[in-house]
């Protein structure tokens, strides 16, 4: 092992503190804004820490009283949950059989490659016909319509993750069950799916993160509280006439909490999922 000089060790710690500060400062400021009284945020020189923490905006946004700021926010929160939930469920239902098929029968793999290549397409390349199609189906400004469109993003990704997952389950185990007389569905139920459960969970969480983050299609295809998602609601707040930065920041904190918690809890799985494509080169 290399012997580390004290100067080098000090340098490492200085850099580490700097990196932590770069990552944390903007996030900390988002939270501080959300609990600072409006007067503190408009003070010159700016007050970096509130004289008295004020959590009232959280209650304001999460209240469902009619025609309040909270009503719009909670509606968009519910829409985001519904759209992300439905799109994720559908993506997994499509991805499990397709991922298994490609894993066990590589000769059909080219079709999955084509599906994955659609990642390159900018959403604007599909947006005009999708808009017209949804309008024709009466699914504009509708959570089902939006969830259907989200499959363009979620399904290729989950199928690819499921395929890599099935690749790591030896096919000999399945073959053994089949020799013992189990049919395909039975083999899946008893052998394959229990072994693949962690991959299914990881894929589902990735899908939820993608759907939660989506903005472009939601901006185009939703217009009011019946379907507007959180990302659109926050962009409205940020671009609108709301003068209280604290309220905008509070909405940001609330929208960020679920994905950030998923990120922290799933750290290991997320990192290996993110890097598997990269490391294999």
């Amino acid at each position: 092992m290399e012997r580390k000089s004290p100067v080098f060790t000090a340098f490492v710690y200085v850099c580490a503190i700097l990196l932590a500060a770069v990552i944390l400062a903007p996030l900390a400021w988002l939270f501080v804004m959300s609990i600072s009284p409006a007067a503190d945020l408009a003070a010159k020189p700016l007050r970096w820490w509130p004289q008295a923490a004020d959590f009232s905006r959280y209650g304001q946004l999460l209240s469902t009283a009619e025609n309040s700021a909270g009503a719009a926010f909670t509606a968009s929160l519910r829409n985001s949950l519904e759209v992300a939930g439905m799109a994720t469920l559908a993506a997994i239902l499509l991805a499990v059989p397709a991922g298994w098929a490609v894993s066990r029968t590589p000769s059909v793999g080219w079709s999955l490659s084509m599906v994955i290549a659609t990642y390159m397409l900018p959403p604007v390349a599909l947006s005009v016909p999708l808009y017209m199609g949804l309008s024709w189906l009466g699914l504009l400004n509708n959570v089902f319509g939006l969830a259907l469109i989200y499959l363009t993003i979620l399904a290729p990704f989950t199928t690819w993750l499921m395929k890599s997952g099935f690749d790591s389950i030896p096919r000999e185990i399945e073959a053994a069950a089949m020799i013992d007389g189990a049919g395909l569905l039975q083999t899946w139920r008893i052998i394959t799916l229990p072994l693949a459960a962690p991959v299914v969970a990881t894929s589902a969480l990735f899908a939820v993160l993608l759907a939660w983050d989506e903005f472009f299609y939601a901006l185009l295809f939703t217009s009011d509280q019946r379907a507007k998602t959180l990302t659109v609601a926050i962009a409205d707040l940020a671009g609108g006439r709301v003068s209280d930065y604290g309220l905008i920041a509070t909405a940001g904190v609330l929208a960020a909490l679920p994905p950030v918690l998923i990120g922290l809890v799933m750290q290991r799985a997320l990192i290996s999922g993110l890097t598997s494509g990269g490391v294999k080169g």
Partner: protein
Amino acid sequence: MSGTWMTTRAWLLMLPLLVIMVAVIGWPLVDTVRLSLTDAQLVGTAGNYVGFDNYTRMLTSSNFTRTLSTTTWFAVVSVAAEMVLGVLAALLLNQEFRGRAILRGLMILPWALPTVVNATLWRLIYKPEYGALNAALTQLHLIDDYRSWLGEPGTALAALIVADCWKNFPLVALIALAALQAVPRDITAAALVDGAGPFNRFRFVILPYLAGPLMVALVLRTIEAFKVFDIIWVMTRGGPANSTRSLSILVYQEAFSFQRAGSGASLALIVTLLVTVLAVAYATLVRKTAGSAA
């Protein structure tokens, strides 16, 4: 079990996915091609066939060339910065120090933060009247007066790039870190015994392990940066004076704000073609790098 049955079964199992993909990706793409050859409006008239008029008009418009250069500038600068910062952060996280695991955990936060929340956060930081950046810089006596970072063409794009980098360099760092941890210890130790300095160890021992994964990250990030919409829309809507307008925003304005579906579609396909060319060029490069590193 015969091979033909295996293949048939595989196709049957893929059928639901393929049907949905044709419905939500294949058909819209073909229809975009058809629309791009018409003067269709978004609502109402179906439009008449106009040949390649939309393409020639879009390609020769000053809007397009200016937007293309803005987008390229955004993509090149932000991706380059993300790569450099990401590798530096990964080299740091590969050292042994107390709190390393916590710092590595923190890196997931900017990545997990929704893009729109990130854009909103930075928009608030850059606010001209009460923004934190102005406050911090004046309190440190680095600037005398509050400035409108997103309101001036000279600083708006740079401000956007900073916000984009902050969100995305940690991902590059995590990918690079995973690759660094795959470098066998005895190889770095041997290089050290042979008297290689820090730079040579990085260049000849570590970089070959990083090259493949970094190329993949570079490809994915560049494609994403070229398609950029969300962060710009929330922070500046392409302004001021169109100085931060990306190609995706231009398509959005053409097709949805001005409701010109036909020319919007042609513009969208031009963007798609550009991204595809970029991706294919990169894929070739990745294969070469992976080949030489192995």
